[in-house]
């Protein structure tokens, strides 16, 4: 399984929840809507910072027929409860075959209540139909092979 090509040539990365959007609060935060076109699968990486004792937090994945998520639908089984002892830990929802034909749009939902929690999230789309993957404008990528020591 040794890779012969860069992961950023085959996977698409996108910001789900920016650091600013996920700043400390006790209110829900919706991830950006992402179109799964050209990709069979997605991993949603939710990174938590400080979670104040007593915070009631969970994450889940949702899907929609439209980008606006006018009628968001939960994806079965994806809810993960995040205990208030999980500060600075990461949670991943990894989905193969997201039912793209019916619901091309997916997003993460972070439910926060009672006390503050800090989080951010990025999406990693994989199993592309057409390669190479194209990164969004806000993702700046540099690739290196056979990295030698020298001036950075």
């Amino acid at each position, binding site marked *: 399984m040794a890779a012969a090509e860069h992961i950023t040539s085959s996977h698409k990365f996108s910001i789900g929840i920016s650091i600013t959007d996920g700043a400390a609060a006790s209110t829900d935060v919706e991830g950006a809507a992402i179109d799964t076109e050209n990709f069979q699968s997605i991993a949603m990486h939710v990174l*938590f910072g400080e979670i104040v004792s007593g915070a009631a937090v969970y994450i889940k994945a949702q899907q929609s027929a439209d980008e606006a998520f006018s009628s968001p639908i939960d994806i*079965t089984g994806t809810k993960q409860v995040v205990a208030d002892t999980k500060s*600075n830990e*990461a949670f*991943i929802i990894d989905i193969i075959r997201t039912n793209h034909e019916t619901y091309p749009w997916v997003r993460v939902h972070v439910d926060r209540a009672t006390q503050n929690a800090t989080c951010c999230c990025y999406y*990693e789309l994989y199993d592309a139909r057409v390669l190479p993957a194209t990164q969004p404008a806000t993702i700046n990528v540099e690739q290196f092979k056979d*990295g030698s*020591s020298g001036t*950075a």
Partner: protein
Amino acid sequence: MGWTNEHLTKRVKFTNAITIAEGATASTDVEGAVIDMQGFTGVCVLFMVGPITSGAVTHINLVQSDVVGMTNPDDLAGTKQTIADTNDNTTFIIDALRPQKRFIQLHCDRATQAATVVAEYIQYGATNLPVTQSTGVTGVEVFKDVVAGTK
């Protein structure tokens, strides 16, 4: 790297490089966790930037070493990326295939004004599968052929 029918989290290892707490608003350097590349071909560093105060001087680069203690680390040639103070809430990726030394670390240089950062390592091209996720990557749940229903 086409369709695999196998979950990403079974073949790629994720490690917190700089947590939200470690990368909280400041104008001082922050060193990422040290990772061992044994058993992996490549590492992709995903570096998320939050608010950057005007005038902040920020850059990232990778360093490598033969020892886990990172004694006398070497910069990885060419990996420096300068982050402008207008790059709030953007993401920078360093994707290094076959680095020559075994231990790798992200270095984030911050000066003059504050910047908020978070980073994660994605190690790929594993020799042995399935991979075991790092401490700190707590909740990994996998799904196939999803249906709508109770979350």
